[in-house]
């Protein structure tokens, strides 16, 4: 064959690839003005993988390590809290994705991909390190620190991966969704997180019912594969390529702000810090008693085990109603902070109902209160995330979403830990003084009510400026319907 025809074939091949290639490449054609529901549903799959990892860490492995593997509860507590170390770094991850210099013109995809890989790596390593941590098989002869180091490393990887994926995934959703459909996007993201948690909790429970070390390896590594599959499907052709991100940075590298500068700019704008404080108080209020609801039902109201398990479902269903209502109302252009404050206002009587259910010995009141807590938490979470998306400066979407996520995840983790400590301390004190056994729980519920008042106070100034702040377009005829 002559050189001429060879280069001609090359030309043809390049032409073919340029025409056919994009169909097989993960690039979006262009930024479409509106996001079709199918594509949005697909994007929200990353929340399913995050929910799955969360359930695995906090629920399934928590139990498996203590019950099946016989690891000490204190060590399990340390391992499970390790991923929380990464929560504050979400702001930094978001910032890095905002300013990512990419020849491909991607800002979010590289981070979601890296997060996915890290989460996969952590899950792939997890089962073996847990088995060694428990001293199973022939690992009993090995020094204990190897298992502890391995398990710690695995938990850190999963935590880092899920925080990275979720932060940058939410930033990508914000980039893609026009302001008026952001409430819908937030609702969907929350629902998919919940769906991921519920479905995988049931699935893990069913798969691990007949526990064996081999089964543990299969289930956790299966979860690792599912993470990759879900996130690749979620990511495929979502982010449009905008070479200008890379080009602009290459042209003016000195203009790249540092994280501190970007943070200062973000914090100076539109009461950002106050919004984060309100988010922190509210999230703490709604998560402090998360793990105390079931024991309260069992110990104080003498509900059977099946019924207390239903409490968690009641909480989730209340949350779903909250997300649904908030999506509807905010989709019509209502102020998201007003919605968040309604959530806090629902939470206060809800926690009072929990406290009152013991003296009246009314499990029904407790159930209703639990549903109302879920509902209030749904309204609050939806309101604050929608506000964050609406108000995120165009060039700092990742930082804004990262800051929200950092506050939200840290506050939730801290609250669960504090709730446990406060309960233990007060219950011990109450037992010593011969007080009502419900005192320990009531102390936590009372702190939650106080935190809700604090969140409301923090949000008040945000409400007064609501019309100017909302950022949502004024309701049009079509939107009001």
């Amino acid at each position, binding site marked *: 064959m002559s050189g001429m025809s060879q280069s001609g074939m090359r030309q043809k091949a390049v032409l073919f690839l*340029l025409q056919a290639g994009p169909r097989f490449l993960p690039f979006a054609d262009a930024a479409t003005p509106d996001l079709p529901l199918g594509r949005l549903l697909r994007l929200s799959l990353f929340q399913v993988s995050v929910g799955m990892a969360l359930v695995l860490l906090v629920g399934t492995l928590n139990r498996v390590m203590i019950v099946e593997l016989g690891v000490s509860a204190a060590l399990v507590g340390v391992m499970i809290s390790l991923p929380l170390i990464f929560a504050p770094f979400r702001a930094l991850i978001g910032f890095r994705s905002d300013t990512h210099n990419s020849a491909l013109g991607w800002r979010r995809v590289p981070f979601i991909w890296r997060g996915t*890989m890290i989460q996969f*790596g*952590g899950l792939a390593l997890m089962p073996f390190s847990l088995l060694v941590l428990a001293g199973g098989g022939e690992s009993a002869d090995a020094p204990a620190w190897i298992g502890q180091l391995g398990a710690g490393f695995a938990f850190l990887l999963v935590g880092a991966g899920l925080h990275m994926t979720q932060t940058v995934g939410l930033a990508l959703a914000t980039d893609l969704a026009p302001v008026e459909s952001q409430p819908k996007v937030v609702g969907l993201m929350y629902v998919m997180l919940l769906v991921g948690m519920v479905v995988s909790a049931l699935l893990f429970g069913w798969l691990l019912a007949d526990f064996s070390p081999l089964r543990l390896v299969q289930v956790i590594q299966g979860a690792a594969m599912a993470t990759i599959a879900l996130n690749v499907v979620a990511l495929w052709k979502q982010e449009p390529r905008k070479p200008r991100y890379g080009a602009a940075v290459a042209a003016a590298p000195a203009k790249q702000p540092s994280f501190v500068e970007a943070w200062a700019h973000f914090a100076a704008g539109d009461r950002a810090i106050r919004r984060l404080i309100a988010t922190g108080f509210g999230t703490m209020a709604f998560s402090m008693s998360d793990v105390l609801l079931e024991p309260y039902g069992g110990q104080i109201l003498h509900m059977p085990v099946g019924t207390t398990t239903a409490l968690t479902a009641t909480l989730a269903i209340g949350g779903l109603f909250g997300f649904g209502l908030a999506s509807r109302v905010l989709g019509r252009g209502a102020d998201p902070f007003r919605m968040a404050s309604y959530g806090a206002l629902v939470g206060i009587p809800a926690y009072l109902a929990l406290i009152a259910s013991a003296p009246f010995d009314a499990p029904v009141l407790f159930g209703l209160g639990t549903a109302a807590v879920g509902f209030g938490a749904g309204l609050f979470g939806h309101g604050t995330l929608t506000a964050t998306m609406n108000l995120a400066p165009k060039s700092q979407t990742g930082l804004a979403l990262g800051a929200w996520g950092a506050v939200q995840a840290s506050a939730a983790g801290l609250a669960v830990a504090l709730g446990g400590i406060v309960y233990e301390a007060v219950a011990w004190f109450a037992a010593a003084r011969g007080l009502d056994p419900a005192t320990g729980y009531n102390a936590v519920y009372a702190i939650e009510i106080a935190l809700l008042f604090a969140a409301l106070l923090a949000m008040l100034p945000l409400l007064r400026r609501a019309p100017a702040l909302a950022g949502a377009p004024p309701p049009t005829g079509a939107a009001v319907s």
Partner: protein
Amino acid sequence: MSDDPTKVWPTGLTLPEAEEIHRHIIDGTRIFALVSLAAHLMAYMFTPWLK
């Protein structure tokens, strides 16, 4: 488009784009190598090659 000299054969990507993708592949390989090394060590300690 096909005669854009910055596009390299056979992918139709430009050189910086191709290098960026390659960097991700290298990073990925490193992470996986590290993780699989640790996982193999743990698996061996638990049960030395399923003896």
